[in-house]
């Protein structure tokens, strides 16, 4: 039983920032000089030449392009992103998927691999069986195929590495904390697999065997997961939450560092805020040494 | 100020005269021979009369009488759920429980109050596990239960009555549900308490004022054939062993009521066959 008093809490229990940050809140003037291009999260003041921020976040300057990266945001999809999503509705010939985007994303029946052959025409039988393939609540991994003008995404799972996900745990972090990298699927040496969705949904599951398990998720393994694997998954989950709570950008190495740093504690101790902070700062220190 | 003009005007605050008079019955709840005021043993249930099919226009209905406690229940539907937001793929059940305005010592309001709302939820929770919701997808079954006279253990009576009404409606069920109440006063546990036994804080009038004796009230809903408890609601002080003991006694009594339900439903089926 762990009850803590709020007064014994260290105020602002996040880590010290790495370097000087240019933080703005909506309406703040970023620059009054001309010649800059306005990117996401900024707007040009009417009449005046001031470039102002429209969201709270960090100013990001690439040559002449100024944009503000919000710290807390919905997911802005880009074509080719790997995402994790949850089916929220089955409609005619399409599924609506929650991807933490502003609007629900769409997965067309024609953009999925169905059992029995990678590519085939979708029959009416398939249309009627849609709920049997993916029903409300199911979790999928997918890739962003297209971004519509209103910002909603269309997804596809036309590769065997995508599809319905089986047993495991979903952790939700801010999309800005997931780095865009070459690969988002990781088989970690500690004995679990990790999918870091660009949309901030992170999936942790028992190790995926690349040869036998890539069925597009239509064969579900509901056998009990071994106790050891389960502990690894729980530990990873708590480590990721700890890192995310302290605003550390997530990718496989830093998660492994956190995992190693957490070894001296039991899994459930990792839920306590002071230990979370310790893990986060240890992992960050180690990252900085590496650089 | 919003006023309710559907009824005759009555003074805003009235109290029943019993609260002003000094008279209290002097007999003790349990006498030296261990007999209660109505002559029952402590673990004895009141004689129970149960009838299925009391309201002819309802899909199913039932009436239960346990001495002074009289409860009637009606079941309608299942009918289509019209509101889109209320939609679920499995069946739904709605339950409304009401004390008739004249049923208790103090007059009840005709608008459902918080106590009735909570009892409605409890009864729903007690009955729902017994009903096969998969048999009526997208539709809703409605159960209405009214206490005509509250002579104690109204909740238990309502549960039993509601389940018989559902069975009488021909709904598919895993089992019938039987309710049973117990009143614990100090060391004494009284099965199927009357209103007197429910409200008194101690066995004898003399130490009514003292708060020393522990007291509790427990109602249990049992599905007897599959031996599953669908609901428990308890208040008042019980030790862990006391709680276990009370639970066991309630279950034993509920099992004894099973033949009554069986007989009543048998009769109802026979009556339908004859027609």
């Amino acid at each position, binding site marked *: 039983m762990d009850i803590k008093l709020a007064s014994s809490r260290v105020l602002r229990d996040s880590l010290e920032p790495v370097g000087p940050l240019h933080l703005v809140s909506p309406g703040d003037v970023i620059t009054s000089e001309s010649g800059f291009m306005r990117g996401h999260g900024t707007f040009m003041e009417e009449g005046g030449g001031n470039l102002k921020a429209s969201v709270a976040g960090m100013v990001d300057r690439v040559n002449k392009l100024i944009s503000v990266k919000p710290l807390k945001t919905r997911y802005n999809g880009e074509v080719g992103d790997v995402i994790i999503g949850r089916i929220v509705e089955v409609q005619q010939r399409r599924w609506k998927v929650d991807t933490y985007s502003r609007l629900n994303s769409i997965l067309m029946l024609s953009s999925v691999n169905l059992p029995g052959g990678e590519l085939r025409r979708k029959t*009416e039988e398939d249309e*009627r069986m849609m709920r049997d393939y993916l029903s409300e609540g199911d979790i999928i991994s997918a890739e962003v195929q297209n971004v519509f003008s209103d910002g909603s995404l269309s997804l596809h799972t036309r590769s065997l590495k995508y599809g319905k996900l089986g047993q495991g745990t979903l952790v939700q972090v801010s999309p800005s904390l997931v780095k865009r990298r070459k690969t988002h699927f990781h088989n970690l040496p500690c004995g679990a697999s990790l999918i870091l969705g660009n949309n901030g949904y992170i999936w942790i599951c028992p190790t995926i065997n690349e040869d036998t398990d890539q069925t597009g998720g239509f064969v579900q393994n509901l056998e009990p997961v071994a106790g050891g694997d389960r502990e690894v998954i729980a530990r990873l989950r708590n480590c990721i939450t700890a890192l995310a709570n302290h605003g550390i950008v997530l990718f496989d190495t830093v998660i492994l560092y956190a995992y190693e740093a957490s070894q001296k504690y039991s899994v459930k101790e990792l839920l306590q805020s002071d230990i979370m902070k310790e893990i986060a700062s240890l992992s960050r220190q180690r990252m900085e040494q590496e650089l | 100020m919003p006023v309710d003009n559907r009824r005759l005007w009555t003074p805003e605050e009235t109290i029943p005269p019993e609260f002003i008079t000094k008279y209290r019955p002097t007999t003790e709840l349990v006498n030296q021979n261990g007999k209660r005021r109505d002559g029952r043993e402590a673990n004895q249930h009141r004689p129970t009369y149960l009838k*299925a099919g009391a309201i002819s226009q309802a*899909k199913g209905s039932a009436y239960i009488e346990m001495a002074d406690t009289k409860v009637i229940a009606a079941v309608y*539907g*299942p*009918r*289509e759920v019209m509101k*889109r937001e209320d*939609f679920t*793929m499995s069946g739904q059940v709605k339950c409304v429980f009401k004390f008739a305005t004249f049923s208790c010592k103090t007059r009840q309001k005709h608008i459902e109050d918080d106590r009735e709302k909570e009892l409605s939820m409890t009864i729903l929770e007690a009955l729902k596990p*017994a009903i*096969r919701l998969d*048999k*009526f*997808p*997208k*539709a809703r079954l409605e159960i209405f239960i009214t206490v005509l006279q509250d002579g104690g253990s109204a909740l238990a009576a309502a549960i039993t009555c509601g389940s018989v009404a559902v*069975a*009488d*409606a*021909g*709904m*598919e*069920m*895993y*089992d*019938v549900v039987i309710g049973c109440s117990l009143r614990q006063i100090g060391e004494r546990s009284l099965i199927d308490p009357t209103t007197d036994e429910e409200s008194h804080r101690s066995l004898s009038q003399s130490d009514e004022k003292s708060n020393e004796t522990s007291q509790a009230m427990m109602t249990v809903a049992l*599905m*007897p*054939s*599959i031996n599953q408890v669908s609901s428990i609601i308890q208040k008042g002080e019980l030790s862990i062993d006391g709680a276990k003991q009370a639970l066991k006694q309630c279950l034993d009594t509920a099992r004894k009521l099973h033949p009554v*339900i*069986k007989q009543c*439903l*048998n009769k*109802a*089926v*026979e009556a*339908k*066959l004859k*027609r």
Partner: protein
Amino acid sequence: MPTEECIRIPGERICRTDKGLVAGRGTYECNGQIYSSVAGMQLKSDKDGKVHIEVQREMKQNVLPEIGMIVTAKVTNVNPRQCKCAIISVETTSLSDPFRGVIRSEDVRSTERDKVEMYKCFKPGDVILARVLSLGDAQSYILTTAENELGVVIALSESGATMVPISWNEMQCPATYAKEYRKVAKVQSDHITQNG
């Protein structure tokens, strides 16, 4: 063997599932035992070489549209994509409260399904026979009339007379001899007895 012809109440254990006994209507199976799930008369029937134990109520059963059942419905609304109707009876029993059903244009007939013109198939007020295709979504059951025996059975002409079918897609008014298009059902005798 369980005793025959006796009254059961919900939750009553009837028998074990062995000896080729199968839990039929009005019963359910749990841990190798068959239990009754309604209050009614216990019956036995042979189906596919297996003995089905059933418990039946004499009073009309609680019927709800189920997949594969034939229902009678009244058309309430027609638009180019679909036709909405109110299901008024299921197989032989009429419902006390109607359920909403919908026939999508591709489910009207089995041939040339993409050329169906809904206004030439149904009009509001028609009584139709249809089969339940699926439980559908929140709104309604999905029905089909893509069988010869399914479609419009009773339709009134503009003058208000009951029309007579003259072909699979036309009906004629006996008063004015005006022809109207419908997806006509080839009513079969067993359906007539079924639907009274």
